[in-house]
Structures are given as structure tokens and as C-alpha cells.
């Protein structure tokens, strides 16, 4: 019994329920035949083609790994230039605003002498534990400073180790160029051009990745006469650099890892400040009404 209804560019048809009576057990044997065929084939060579529907498909994970596509995204990272150590981030707050679960917290760098905002991030926290890997932050970043990492083995016994600060988030540009050559090639020219623009307003160690501060000289002070405080800070830094130079490459990660408690306190402070700001806004709105 098959009925057909004509519809535009196709028809509706009734599926065949198989009304013919069969000897009992034949249906099951047919199925077992398929399973047996697969069992035999599973001892053959490993499958490499997408069109294969029988054989061995498993990948022995920790030893063997499949290649990740370039576009793969897991967690956000920040980029800095390999040579000068200058971070691409200018703390424009685009990513903080768009982040759907609101896990990015940025503080802008200020010129120590004038107190004016400088296009660099003083602090950059991302709560990896609440991040949903949607990738909107790297899509929206106009400076190509935030990118999505391919690293996925992030498990940790310490919950707060999943709140990452700038030092932990920073990766050299060469790292990203290695994991996503085509995507970086598209973005490279624009990213460096914009970096040159923000360099004009940075001075000293402002905007230099924390792990690179011991290996690169501070940026030249811009044309305006350097404020004394900044110059002193810079010379103090240089003295430290000179000492550190003796012990050559002091492990950058071990240089100044903020403790878990510090991180937690800082995160709490940022959250409290945001909540206070929000409450104040609401108060204002209420007053307006």
C-alpha cells in the first residue's frame, strides 16, 4: 500500500513496512551478517578515507592525535610581538563587552606621570572555567590581539588556576602563526600597522609582555619630555634587567607568578567594582524616573 501525494519539486510517499512474511530468524541473521563483515574488516588496515564505512576508526588518543584544523577554537589567548615584546592588545574593551558569559576583565594602563590612559592593558583576566569558547572575542577584536588557542588539555585540580592573568594568557605571535598560518597571514599586515599606531603612545615597559620585560629594552620615551617618575621607574627596571642578565634567561614564568590568593582577591575586587558601578547606574536610572 503506497500512496503518493504530489508536492512542488517532490512528493510524499509512504515508507514500506515490509509486509512479506519471512522465515523466523532471517532478519536477525541478516543483521548479524553485517556485524560479522565489520568484525573481519576491523583487522585490516586503518581507515584513512572519509568514504570508508568499515574497518578501524579509533585513534589511540594520548599517543596518537588527529590534526586539528586551523580554524579550531578552544580558549582565548593574547598575542605579543616576538622581538619587541609589545602586546597587540590596546585595552579597547570590545571583547569584554561582547563576551556572552562576561568572563573577560580588563584594566587599562595609565601613564604614571600624567595619569592619562595609554593604549595597553594593565591587567587582563579571563576566567577559563566559565568561558564557552564561542570565539566572539577574537572575531570582534580590531587589533588581532586576542586569538583562539588550540590547546585543549587544560584540566587542573586547582579551580582558581583557571582564572588566567596577562602573563599566563600571553603567547608570542610566532606561536599563533605556527598553529594557524593562513589565518595569521590574512591578519598580519593590519595587526602590525595598528600596533605601530599604539606604540606612539606607549613608553617604558608599558604594554610589554611581562615575560619579555627582562629580555627587551624599554620602549623609547615619546617626543614629549619624559616625566621624572616614569624615567626613574624605567631606570630602576634597567638596573633589575642588568642583574637578571647575569643569570641569563631567568625562566619568565617563574619570575613573578601571582599566587592563587592574590588572583582571587583581585578577581573579587574587580567584580565588586563592577557590581558597585552597576548599582550606581541603576540608582541613577531610578532617580531619572
Amino acid at each position, binding site marked *: *500500500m503506497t500512496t503518493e*501525494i504530489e*508536492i*512542488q*519539486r*517532490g*512528493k*510524499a*510517499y*509512504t*515508507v*514500506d*513496512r*515490509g509486509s512479506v512474511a*519471512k522465515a*523466523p*530468524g*532471517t*532478519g*536477525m541473521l*541478516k*543483521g548479524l*551478517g*553485517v*556485524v560479522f563483515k565489520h568484525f573481519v574488516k576491523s583487522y585490516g588496515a586503518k581507515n584513512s*578515507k*572519509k*568514504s*570508508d*564505512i568499515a574497518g578501524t*576508526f579509533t585513534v589511540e588518543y594520548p599517543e596518537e592525535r588527529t590534526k*586539528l*584544523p*586551523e*580554524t*579550531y*577554537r578552544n580558549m582565548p589567548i593574547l598575542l605579543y610581538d616576538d622581538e619587541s615584546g609589545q602586546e597587540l592588545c590596546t585595552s579597547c574593551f570590545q571583547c569584554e563587552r*561582547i563576551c*556572552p558569559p562576561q568572563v573577560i576583565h580588563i584594566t587599562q594602563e595609565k601613564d604614571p606621570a600624567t595619569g592619562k590612559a595609554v593604549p595597553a592593558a594593565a591587567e587582563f583576566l579571563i576566567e577559563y572555567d566559565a568561558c*564557552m*569558547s*564561542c*570565539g*566572539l572575542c577574537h*572575531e*570582534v577584536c*580590531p587589533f588581532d590581539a586576542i586569538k*583562539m588557542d588550540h590547546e585543549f588539555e587544560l584540566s587542573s585540580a586547582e579551580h582558581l588556576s583557571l582564572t588566567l592573568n596577562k602573563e599566563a594568557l600571553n603567547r608570542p605571535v610566532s606561536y599563533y602563526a605556527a598553529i594557524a598560518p593562513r589565518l595569521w597571514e590574512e591578519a598580519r599586515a593590519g595587526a602590525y600597522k595598528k600596533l605601530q599606531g599604539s606604540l606612539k603612545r606607549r613608553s617604558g615597559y608599558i604594554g610589554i609582555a611581562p615575560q619579555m620585560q627582562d629580555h627587551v629594552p624599554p620602549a623609547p620615551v615619546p617626543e614629549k619630555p619624559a616625566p621624572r617618575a616614569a624615567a626613574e621607574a624605567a631606570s630602576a627596571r634597567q638596573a633589575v634587567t642588568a642583574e637578571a642578565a647575569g643569570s641569563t634567561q631567568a625562566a619568565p614564568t617563574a619570575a613573578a607568578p601571582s599566587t592563587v590568593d592574590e588572583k582571587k582577591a583581585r578577581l573579587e575586587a574587580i567584580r565588586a567594582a563592577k557590581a558597585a558601578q552597576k548599582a550606581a547606574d541603576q540608582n541613577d536610572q531610578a532617580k531619572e524616573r
Partner: protein
Amino acid sequence: MLKTDELQINIGPQHPSTHGVFRMLCTVDGETIVDLKPVFGYLHRNHEQLAEVSTYLQMMPYTDRLDYFNSMAMNWGLALAVEKLAGIPVPERAEYIRVIMNELTRILNHASALGFLINDMGAWQTPLLFGLREREKILDLFELASGARMMCNYFRFGGVLRDLPPEFLPQLQELMAGLPGFFDEFETLLRDNEILMARAVDVGILPKELAVSYSVTGPLLRASGIPYDIRKAEPYGIYERLDFDIPVGSVGDVYDRFLVRIEEMRQSYRILQQCLEQIGDAQGGHIVKEMASTGKQKALRPPVGDVYARVETPKGELGFYLVSDGSPQPYRYKVRAPSFINLSPLGDMCRGHKVADVVVILGSIDIVMGEVDR
């Protein structure tokens, strides 16, 4: 006949056969179901309220988490609604990419849903792994295009996030070379199996009239014998250009749902073939020019008004009702979730059957709790 008392028992919420956190309040007489009430809400995540404080773009990754098996289809629902509301055109090539993604989603959903259905019947793992193998291959393609296997977040208002990488279409072609073999094999594996027939034939019948009055959609409705498919009834995207048929069932039992899903995979394969032939000539890029930057997407302020847009996801009609007050956030955002509505007639389907059949009937509806509770 021995007089027995009726007894109320709970199946779930923490039960592996309920496909998530879902409770069925059963009244049983011995092994027979006298009454069954589905109880939802254990996975409520405030999806709709969240939209009222988020921009339209910020909701896109959250739609992935509605039906996490078919995130591409879910993306399309929101994208279509916002495009209708704001009057954003979609280039031809983007439409083809969308159809390819949506039909791949349908194949992977049906392959794994049938696997889980057979799992519920007691055929542990073997048939399920046949389905999951195909699903993995398709997920590899999704990862290639969007960057993620399940939470794709690939659709944007006016197109898709990025164009297909050059290796995508050849890989899709290679994958498709194996698909007909998979459909036939999957059918041979189980179609005539005596145990499956005993568990599925005439179990959980949903009559036509009842299905319509519950506003059930998707394969569940088509298995009850009503040829209703939004891709035909209210074509969106480029579906009106594509040839495909609608398989319908005649009885409306679990067995019909099984057969209809297999046939739907074959129809999806036909659609994919046509898309592969035509995508080369498609005009335009992957996204319309005026919406190409994420900044534009982010700052989208649709004009004041409301809109209802619907798409045919593998589970049924997914509708988005949006009300805009001209601000970047929707004033109201409502999801018509297919799994949720398809789950409502569960009590009627189960009445008179045994407790063991409840699990099979629930499996044949094919639900994802993320979508039911939102």
C-alpha cells in the same frame, strides 16, 4: 483475576534512559502504564530571559546549547528570525553553505538518534556505534568550517561566519561517497530484526488527529502519516529550488518513526548532491557585505516590530518569536522548541503499554533536554 492496586512511581529525573534530566510520573497497574505525566524543568537555564539583556549576536552561541546535537540548525533559526526582522538579504553562496550544514546535521542527528533508540531497546552499543561513526565524520567537517564540533556558532545575520575552507568540499564529496552504503547497511542491520519488530511494531501509536491537536512536528508527525515539512510548506533559504520527497508513515508507531528517519537521511543525501552541483555557480560571498564585520553584527538594531520565523530542524519545527523595541537587545525572545512540544503527547502514546515500552517510545520521539527546558 487477582485484584491489584495502582501504584505511582517516578522514572527519572536521574535515569540513564530519560536522555537527560527528565521525570516521568507513572501510574502503573502491575507492569501496565495507566497514566504518565512528563515533568520537565530540571535543565532550565533562563535562555529566553538571558536574551533580553544580551544583544542579538550574543545569543547566537547560546542557541548552540539548545539542541546541542543540531547546533547548525538551531543557529539557522535565530539567524532567519533576525534577518526577517531587520530585512537583511543573504547571498546565494551563503544559502548553499547553510543548506549543506543543515542537511549534514539532519543525517548526523538521525543516525545517532536511531542508534540511541536501538540502545534503549537493549541492543547495547553496536548499532549506536554505526551511527556515531558517521556522526564523527560529519563533525570533523563542522570543525573544519566553524572551528568547533558541536557548539558551532557558525551562522551570522546575513550569511555565515567564514567561507568554506578549500579542503571542505572535496572532503564532503568523499564523505558522501560512503553515505549510501551506510544507509543500506544500517537498514539491513536492523530493519527486519525480529527483536526490533517485537519491540517497535504497534508500540506507541500516535494517531494523526492526536498528533495534529498536540501540534507535533518533525519526523514524529510524518511517521503518523501527515506529509508536513516546513521546507516544503513554507520554504526558507533555497529549499524551493531543491528536489526532495517527504517520507511518511502509515501506522504511526515506533517502527514507522524508525523507517521514516532512515528515509529522511536518504532525502538529505539527495539535497546534498544537488547543493554540491550548484554551489559552484552560486553568486555572492559567504556573507552579505553590509554585515560582514562583527562590529556591524554586534551593533545590530532591528526596527521596531515583531517576527516569527521557523525552520525545519531534524526534530521538528523550531520557531523564534522576536519582539524588537529598536534597541540592541530583543524586547521579547521566545523559542518554540520542537522537542518540548513533541514530548507532550508521551502520556497518550504510553497508556496501556508496559513500563519497558516507555523507554522505547521516549527514545523514538528523539528529544534533547537542552532544548526541552531551555
